[in-house]
């Protein structure tokens, strides 16, 4: 910069560049990321907020969410009980904050476990013809049971627990991941570089690991994000109809289920968890939309 020589006097007649062009906005790396992927930034930020809320629930001015206090039943929202109290006198605010834990655990666990299992099944059946025919028939069958009903049937036969809710939702989601991965594998198998690897004598596990798996990760990540959102809705739905998380654990679905009997007179018991659930699911969906646009432009164009 110091070597730049200034033009002699009289050459300043031409306007400086800055006067013609609008000032170029300087963005840092984070600023650039937010500018290019606004939905990932907003969704990611909101999801992190809810995760922090779930982790630090005891520090967020909450009281024991299961503490009964029959003397102060169904108090409306006030300075002392921010979201009011339910029919057993429990603090709705504390229950809602703690309820985030169940929603997030179920959402993340279902998404990760079904992505891993579905990925494995999809990779194997995309590569081994003999397995493919049988496995895909089973997957088709499982997929034709509406997932809430599949979960209801399984929850009716087991004792209510968060683990069982996750297992039921995973079984409903696995076929969808497997189908997606299998589709990707089938197109990748025909790619010249995979054929070249086969011709060069690379062994199948190595081809899957080196050439196929990396290409399936983007669509599976996107899919998993949407499964996370739908698992949160499913958990709340199952708890709401009495086939989900055991009633003793405060989850958003459970709080709404308990508020159901009184909702016409005390609507806040239902509405506070409903708002939290909706915003959490919205954040995860925004993150998913952003990830899809960023990672998988071909898919983004189609949907």
């Amino acid at each position, binding site marked *: 910069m110091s070597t730049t020589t200034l033009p002699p006097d009289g050459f300043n007649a031409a306007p400086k560049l800055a006067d013609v062009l609008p000032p170029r906005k300087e963005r840092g790396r984070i600023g650039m990321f937010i500018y290019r992927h606004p939905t990932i930034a907003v969704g990611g930020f909101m999801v992190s907020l809810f995760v922090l809320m779930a982790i630090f629930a005891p520090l967020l001015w909450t009281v024991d969410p299961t503490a009964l206090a029959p003397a102060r039943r169904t108090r409306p929202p006030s300075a002392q009980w921010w979201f009011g109290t339910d029919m057993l006198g429990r603090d709705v605010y504390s229950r809602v904050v703690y309820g985030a834990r169940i929603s997030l655990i179920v959402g993340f666990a279902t998404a990760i476990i079904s992505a891993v299992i579905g990925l494995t099944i999809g990779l194997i059946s995309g590569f081994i013809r003999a397995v493919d025919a049988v496995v895909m028939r089973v997957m088709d*069958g499982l997929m034709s049971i509406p997932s809430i009903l599949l979960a209801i049937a399984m929850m*009716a036969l087991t004792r209510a627990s968060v683990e069982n809710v996750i297992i039921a939702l995973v079984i409903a989601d696995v076929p969808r991941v497997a189908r997606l991965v299998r589709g990707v594998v089938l197109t990748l198998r025909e790619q010249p570089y995979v054929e070249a690897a086969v011709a060069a004598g690379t062994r199948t596990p190595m081809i899957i690991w080196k050439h196929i798996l990396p290409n399936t990760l983007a669509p599976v990540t996107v899919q998993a994000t949407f499964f996370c959102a739908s698992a949160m809705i499913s958990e709340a739905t199952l708890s709401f109809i009495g086939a989900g998380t055991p009633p003793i654990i405060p989850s958003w679905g459970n709080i709404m289920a308990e508020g159901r009997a009184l909702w016409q007179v005390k609507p806040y018991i239902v509405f506070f968890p409903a708002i939290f*659930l909706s915003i959490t699911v919205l954040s995860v969906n925004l993150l998913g939309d952003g990830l899809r646009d960023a990672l998988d432009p071909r898919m983004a164009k189609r949907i």
Partner: protein
Amino acid sequence: MFAYTVRRVIATIPVMGVVALFVFSLLYLAPGDPAAIIAGDQATPEDVERIRASLGLDRPFLVRFLEWLFRVLQGDLGVSIFTNLPVAHMIKQRLEPTFSLMALTLAIALTFAIPMGVLAAWKQGTWIDRLVMVFAVLGFSVPVFVVGYLLAYTFALQLDWFPVQGYTPIANGLGGWLSNLMLPAVALGGVFIALIARITRATMLEVLSQDYVRTAKAKGVGQRAILFVHALKNAAVPIITIIGLGFAGLIGGAVVTESVFAIPGVGRLVVDAILRRDYPVIQGVVLMFSFVYVIVNLIVDLLYTVFDPRIRY
């Protein structure tokens, strides 16, 4: 066409077979003793034994499965543990409200979603487009029962335009039937509108960039004719595909919506059955709804050839 139809119908048999096998073997796959879980904590050992025998858990799996399958094929879905009534009969009594709700939801969703998607694609990038997309994301994110309560609170409790809950059979007059079902159908329709509007927009965008659309524009075909005659007809296949696939969500949503609005349909039946752990009823409802879902998708597959004559099998 005939050969294709036959082939598609035959292809649904293994799918339904897997559904039946899965729903049946859940009794055996479930961890712990299902008879004890169904009987509940206060049950005596005799109760547990009685339930075990009535579910046939004391006999070999394969024998029991084939027996059960044979009876299901004849329309016998077993007997409820709680009421001792035939499950098929219990379901049949509850079909009308559920199918009414689903039909009205579908009608509302299609009426709003397709024009919304077409409009968003036509006005791509404008605030109309953005509004439709925001609505779509919201539709996916706000659970059906939350929308249900919100609508019931606003339009039934506060404004008193519709009844809060309940159901009027269609035989008692169309007005009562419609006013009872309006809020549930709109609540349930939200997700469906989001789904269909989004796919309509996406496929319309693709179709609108085709050469024949440009040709139509060049020769002076009106905007409306281009959108609804030239473009929408060609976008029909993805749209009806998503309607078929979305039917699973419609079924799941109906179960919850019926609980919110106290509609005495199949969904209520299954929710009541959960509380009583009445597995034969749950099994019957799952089988029935899966069958409906498979049939709907079979119809969708057959409709492809109607909407797109290029598809030949």
